[in-house]
């Protein structure tokens, strides 16, 4: 048995399969960062930290003439969110029910995807993670209130990246508001989304619910690195008569290796706040 202790759960194979499939579906839909950044791993539970290759010198010498440096590492964080399920409902899957209530699985998958993406884009100081947006050296660009001006703003952002020597392909991670405006807008009957994807950037526009505004970034590789120990997994916590509690977990850290490879675009109203 491993740390997830799945063997101890009173859950039939068919129900496990349904739970895993539902979690997978929601995670793939909601995880935006993994569609854009380099993925390093998974290295399993034992993997605890990323080697930063640097030394932090310790001033006090244990013995005169012997200098000491402490290796710098970036530790992984472990996320865990509970999933409380009705055991009778799970058993109904084995009876052939094809509409089981797996709402708690969806909720947990959305939460953990949000937590991972939030660390990637916005950072998580307590965990020693600097996000893509806060690391970007450029002043945020303004997305005009009129959604029709997205192409102009994105061209401007792309030029700034190019001037800094950052090559493409580029992708746009768009928050819900920006994504809707881009998807719904059209210019003389031509969809804005198509214009951006086909004529301005040579990568995808990704729905990124953890972002306010949008981020244009290079996806050439080598700029942003998500390091995963244990990849997203569902484990067993406990059960009583009616319910079983599972949890969705993962361990990871994130590093921005080239801060200049991304630029943040904010809505005008967000700039004023």
């Amino acid at each position, binding site marked *: 048995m*491993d740390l*997830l202790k*799945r063997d101890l759960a009173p859950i*039939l194979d068919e129900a496990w399969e349904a739970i*895993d499939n539902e979690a997978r579906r929601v995670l793939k839909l909601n995880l935006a960062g993994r*569609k854009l950044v*380099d*993925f390093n791993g998974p*290295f399993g539970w034992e993997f605890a930290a990323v080697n930063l290759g640097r030394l932090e010198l310790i001033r006090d010498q244990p013995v005169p003439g012997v200098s000491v440096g402490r290796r710098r590492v970036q530790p992984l964080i472990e996320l865990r969110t509970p999933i409380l399920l009705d055991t009778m409902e799970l058993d109904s899957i084995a009876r052939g029910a094809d509409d089981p209530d797996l709402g708690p699985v969806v909720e947990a998958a959305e939460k953990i995807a949000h937590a991972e993406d939030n660390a990637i884009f916005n950072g998580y100081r307590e965990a020693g993670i600097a996000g893509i947006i806060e690391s970007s050296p450029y002043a945020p660009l303004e997305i005009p209130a009129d959604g029709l001006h997205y192409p102009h703003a994105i061209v401007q952002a792309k030029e700034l990246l190019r001037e800094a020597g950052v090559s493409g392909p580029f992708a746009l991670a768009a928050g819900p508001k920006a994504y809707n405006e881009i998807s719904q807008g059209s210019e003389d009957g031509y969809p804005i989304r198509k214009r951006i994807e086909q004529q301005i950037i040579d990568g995808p526009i990704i729905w990124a619910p953890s972002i306010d505004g949008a981020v244009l970034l290079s996806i050439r590789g080598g700029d942003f690195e998500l390091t995963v120990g244990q990849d*997203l997994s569902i484990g067993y916590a406990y059960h009583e008569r009616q319910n079983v509690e599972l949890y969705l977990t993962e361990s990871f850290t994130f590093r921005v290796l080239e801060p200049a490879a991304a630029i943040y675009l904010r809505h005008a109203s967000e700039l004023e706040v």
Partner: protein
Amino acid sequence: MAGGSDSYHEPYELLTEESKNMHRALVTVMEELEAIDWYQQRAEACSDADLKKILLHNKNEEIEHAMMSLEWIRRNNPVFSDQAKTYLFSNGPITEVEKNAMDGGGARGSGGSAPAAGGSLGIGSLKKGRK
């Protein structure tokens, strides 16, 4: 007998005891697998029902012998062990087991029909052009 020194490919005196034992185990597995194949064919062609039962019984005995020897090899060779952990008792297409293992940290589901490794959902990278 195949396990004798006549099946060594290098001078006997140059081989370590470890290699000699591994050789003994490997040729044993080869012989058992060959016997399984023989018994299978003989049983299939046999026109006597009683003899057919005996041949199938013998074949299954050889499978047991092969697995016992294979397990000795696995315990004594870490590469065999790693590959066994990846492929044996896995789910899904065998040609995708290695990829799933790379993405999920191992190929074995840890509970029920959980497909990916160590219970991982096998999400991995979602970047286009890379799993």
